[in-house]
């Protein structure tokens, strides 16, 4: 039994899948977190589907001989960046409703392009396009890992160096500019690197898993975790656990690892909403108590008990000592 497990883990397919899962979790805890902070989580699905449209264009150009050098991944990166730029332009002033419309339009456009071009691509190539949609973490090749690894390293470096700026732009764009920050540059830097990461992740594991892992853990963590650092750590943990659970499930029962991981990640959001509700309930009880005790400041002193009552989620206890 144990030997079986060990040989399974040492098989190249499985070890590639595990490395891929860790790298996707890194992308989620950096890019995914920042996009949720910026109120732009819906951009992920737009960018992921743009990658699909771009890949279709690449295959079409290759097949028809118009541009044989045009690898589908180039198309995917190009389209994703384009969507990020359009979204970024619409939202330069920090208004997310406008960005939402821009994402919706680019989403429709890239899917239409993909479906339109499918008629002109030989049927043998079409599954490659669908791979961008469904994907399979067990089919990762070494090139996928290298590209994904490179992006993950880039994202981590950018996050370490510029997280303050990214957060300032998310919290107070107007104030940041007024104090002299080139907010626009950071805004685009974040959107473009995120879209490149999303495109590569989409090629590697498919749009559906990317969407589930990029959005749900970050949205869930942001509901309940009370510090930036805590959210980043919590996203990583939720993402890794759902992906590994997906992989494990795919070996025991015959199921798609992406589907299981997606379902678990989505569940984390449901659980987070529940924790939040329980907390708010506890908070309103506290408020009533405080009203009866004059001079007691709102929301102070109640947090520890309230946090304990929210269940044993370790990640909610991460406390950052340093400024964000």
């Amino acid at each position, binding site marked *: 039994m144990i030997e079986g497990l060990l040989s399974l883990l040492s098989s190249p397919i499985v070890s590639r899948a595990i490395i891929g899962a860790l790298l996707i979790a890194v992308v989620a805890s950096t890019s995914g977190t920042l996009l949720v902070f910026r109120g732009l989580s819906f951009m992920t699905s737009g960018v992921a589907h743009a990658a699909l449209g771009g890949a279709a264009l690449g295959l079409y150009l290759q097949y028809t001989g118009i541009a044989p050098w045009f690898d589908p991944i180039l198309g995917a990166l190009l389209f994703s960046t384009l969507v990020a730029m359009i979204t970024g332009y619409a939202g330069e002033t920090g208004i997310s409703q406008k960005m939402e419309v821009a994402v919706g339009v680019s989403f429709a456009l890239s899917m239409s392009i993909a479906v339109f071009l499918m008629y002109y691509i030989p049927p043998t190539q079409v599954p490659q396009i669908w791979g961008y949609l469904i994907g399979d973490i067990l089919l990762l090749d070494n090139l996928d890992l290298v590209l994904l690894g490179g992006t993950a390293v880039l994202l981590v470096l950018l996050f370490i160096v510029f997280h303050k700026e990214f957060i300032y732009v998310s919290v107070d*764009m107007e*104030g940041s500019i*007024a104090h*002299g920050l080139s907010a626009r540059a950071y805004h685009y830097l974040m959107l473009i690197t995120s879209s490149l990461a999303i495109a590569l992740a989409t090629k590697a594991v498919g749009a559906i898993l990317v969407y589930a892992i990029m959005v749900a853990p970050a949205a869930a963590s942001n509901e309940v975790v009370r510090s930036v650092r805590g959210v980043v750590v919590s996203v990583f943990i939720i993402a890794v656990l759902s992906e590994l659970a997906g992989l494990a499930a795919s070996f025991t029962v015959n199921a798609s690892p992406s589907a299981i991981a997606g379902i678990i990640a989505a569940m984390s959001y449901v659980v987070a909403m529940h924790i939040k509700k329980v907390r708010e309930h506890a908070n309103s009880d506290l408020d009533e108590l405080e009203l009866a005790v004059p001079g007691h400041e709102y929301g*102070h002193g109640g947090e520890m008990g309230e946090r304990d009552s929210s269940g044993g989620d370790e990640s909610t206890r991460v406390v950052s000592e340093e400024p*964000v």
Partner: protein
Amino acid sequence: MSETLLEAHGLTVRYPEGEVALKDVTFSVETPSFMAIIGPNGSGKSTLLKTALGLLRPISGSIRLLGHDSTRESAAIRRLVRYVPQRDRIELTVPIKVKDIVLMGRLLKKRPPRIASRTDKRIAHEALQRVNMDEFWDHPFNELSGGQRQRVLVARALAAEGPVLMLDEPLAGTDAESQRLIVQVLGEYHTENDVNIIMVTHDLNPIHSYVDNVLLLRRTVIGLGKPCDVMDPALLTQVYGHSARVVEYAGHRYCVTRDTGVDRHHD
């Protein structure tokens, strides 16, 4: 020798697909000053601040802050000001801590990686103490009440550096206690330090004993003067309509209007 704090000449500002928000605005205020800009909703108060900061471009005319032109010298202006935007411009989705909001005012004027020094932290603590919020140092900003958040944002301005504080409706959506505290802290800070304060507000009453100059705005300049001069029934009727009344109480004039809500953006 006194310098000019804020000076506008024929300033006209229009939003890309909107109407004219400011029309032919001309005035000048000398330093040092605690200046209030008052007027009802949509009278162009926020627009005036944003234009002065170079965040909006005038279609004609000009505005200068401490002698720097808003369009050509916005970089210089941004080194001089500490700005608190209207409260609906602050996003509450990020679980940023109170300390990080306050440090932001100082760190934004540094270069990346913008590490907070011991001095930065000490000054941030002192600023929070002034607004009675220091015990919330490690508390998430988005869990505070409206009044507490405004106090923290005022602390951010106090902790930062630069000769001009610009605050857009710092009293909006706050409880009476926070209002009193913010007004008192700003008044004291202005007299103790060599700084100018430009504060947009709906309601002059809470601050009229601290301010030096009041600009009455309704798309254009209706009046400019000392608080008691501006508390003139004829002027206030022009700004607030016929519901405005001036009452005298304990040697001070108070203005009573029906317009006491919170300013809102329409974007």
